[in-house]
């Protein structure tokens, strides 16, 4: 039973970690876009 729960938890941990990476990348990109806009104005 333990293996079952570990497998399910590991699956969601992998997906949530990847979603976290995507959110961080998006925030960094937004920051770069804002900086570019600021430097232009």
């Amino acid at each position, binding site marked *: 039973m333990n293996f079952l729960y570990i*497998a399910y938890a590991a699956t969601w941990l992998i997906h949530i970690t990847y979603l976290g990476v*995507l959110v961080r990348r998006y925030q960094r*990109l937004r920051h770069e876009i804002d900086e570019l806009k600021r430097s232009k104005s």
Partner: protein
Amino acid sequence: MKRAFPIFAVLTALLLSYALYEALVAAPTEQTMGNVQRIFYYHVPSAWTAFLLFFINFVCSIQYLVRRDKVADTIANWVAIVLGTAACVAAIVIRPLPSGTEPSSVATTGLAITGLYFLIKKYFSGTGTDALAVVTAEVGVVFCTVVLVTGPLWARPVWGIWWTWDVRLTSTLVLWLIYVSYLMLRRFSTSGQTPLLAAALAIFGALDVPLVYFSIWIFRTQHPQPVIGGGGSIDPRMLHVLLINWLAFLCFAALICRSRYRLEILQRELEEVQALEALQEPRSSR
């Protein structure tokens, strides 16, 4: 159209919750393996989703290469049409089909190749196919990682070992390594030829997918024979739960791919603007 994404996200979350309930509670308990067999409902749909994403990556890579030349593009269109037609004809005419294949699966695969090829061609530009190739490879690697993690967690209580170097397991690991190297090439190479090299690598990498899939029919492996297709049987309630979970993972993968694609396009646009700015700077400083 802007509302469609959050609505789809909520529906996917609901579907994933329902699929989890079905897998952990509603699905019948397998007699020999017991509850640990329920890993099947995450392991197999993740593998199928990864294969589908790598297949889309393969189609995108071909399109990126052939669209550079008009003659190659026309030839590729005809190859896609002939492949789809040949698969349908083979499904009707050839008897018996090779082990592990059924007429319906051969015809569906052929039509899917042709359909997907022209769908991508219609909705994505040359650079769009390149961006979609990166996205599907990345999300495919995530799903393939799930397969490689849940597999040993299922194998340990059932086989008594975490890992064995049999063809199915090894070819899956090789597939994962090929696509990780593809992503590393995309991430760290600064050459203008990177998309071209990556597309070629992806086409060779995709050749491993049929090897992974058919390895259990061709070789004697520790990995069991499939219960769907190839003459296996599965309890209808288990099949229902499996398909619900696959549908949920497909929706989840589509959702991530959509977000990742938007991110990739934004990133490329920003890089383009930054490159233009860098070109203009020396002139303005003179």
